[in-house]
């Protein structure tokens, strides 16, 4: 007797259903943040699971299946994007990761520290706006921010998924969050949650 909704006639498939399928919501959320739109995210999830199924023999059972699926998902997304944007201008695909190039200056904090030193304005920004801001980040930063802040993964797990060293995770997360902060600050100024004290446009 086997379930009629799932492919259970081969042993590897059974474990696939047990280990990979339960992560579909998480993979979907990750795909949604990468792809932006629901349709595209659903296609991405479908492709991810299709590839994961084909590569199931390469997965070491009992290890972190969600990370493994995220890795596939991101690789599928990057390949699709590369294909789609072949003729378009892309923001530098492999951003230089020189840690010395990271601005340690907290521009937003400096700008708002007189009017709102504890960043109360962040609490006024609705979830949807935060998500829009996250989606507008360059992919390298967006993936790091999503995996850390929305999926609550450790730097080591993110490094594994993005196939980059932990030090690069740190710098991407640092830059991504700082860019995000600037976007949220601009939004808060536009909405009147905070007055622009930066003196800049």
């Amino acid at each position, binding site marked *: 007797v086997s379930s009629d909704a799932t492919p259970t006639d081969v042993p590897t*498939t059974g474990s696939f259903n047990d280990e990979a*399928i339960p992560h579909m919501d998480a993979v979907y*959320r990750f795909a949604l943040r990468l792809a932006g739109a629901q349709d595209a995210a659903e296609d991405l999830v*479908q492709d991810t699971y299709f590839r994961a*199924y084909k590569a199931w023999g390469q997965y070491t059972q009992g290890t972190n299946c969600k990370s493994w699926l995220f890795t596939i998902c991101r690789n599928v997304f990057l390949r699709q994007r590369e294909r789609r944007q072949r003729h378009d201008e892309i923001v530098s695909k492999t951003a230089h990761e020189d840690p010395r190039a990271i601005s340690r200056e907290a521009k937003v904090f400096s700008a708002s520290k007189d009017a709102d030193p*504890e960043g*109360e304005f962040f609490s006024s920004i609705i979830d949807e706006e*935060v998500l829009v801001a996250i989606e507008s980040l360059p992919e390298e930063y967006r993936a790091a921010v999503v995996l850390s802040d929305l999926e609550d993964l450790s730097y080591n797990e993110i490094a594994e998924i993005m196939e980059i060293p932990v030090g690069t995770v740190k710098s991407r997360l640092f830059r991504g969050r700082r860019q995000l902060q600037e976007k*949220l600050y601009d939004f808060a100024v536009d909405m009147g949650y905070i007055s622009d004290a930066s003196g800049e446009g």
Partner: protein
Amino acid sequence: MLEGLKRVLGFTQNSPDDCKDSSSDMMSCEEVRSSIYEYIDQELDSATAAGVKKHLDACPECYPMAKFETRFIESIQRVTEQASASPDLQQRILEALAKEPDEG
């Protein structure tokens, strides 16, 4: 992760002079600022985290910065999404996989 956030929000601030008077055993503002996210994310080893905390408790410049950054991180993390794969998508995937020959 929330523990880390609470830890940052909950720290107590000591005399502002402690920072300026600090000797070599105190981390610099620059060091603290460059590792503030690692601190909030609880990615620092315990000795370094203790050093950051010690600095934050004493430094009138970095203390508000840390609270500000913590508030910012909270605003992203609270977004924890409601989105989930639709039953329709799950069904479609399961059906497609059922038609696939096993590759294992």
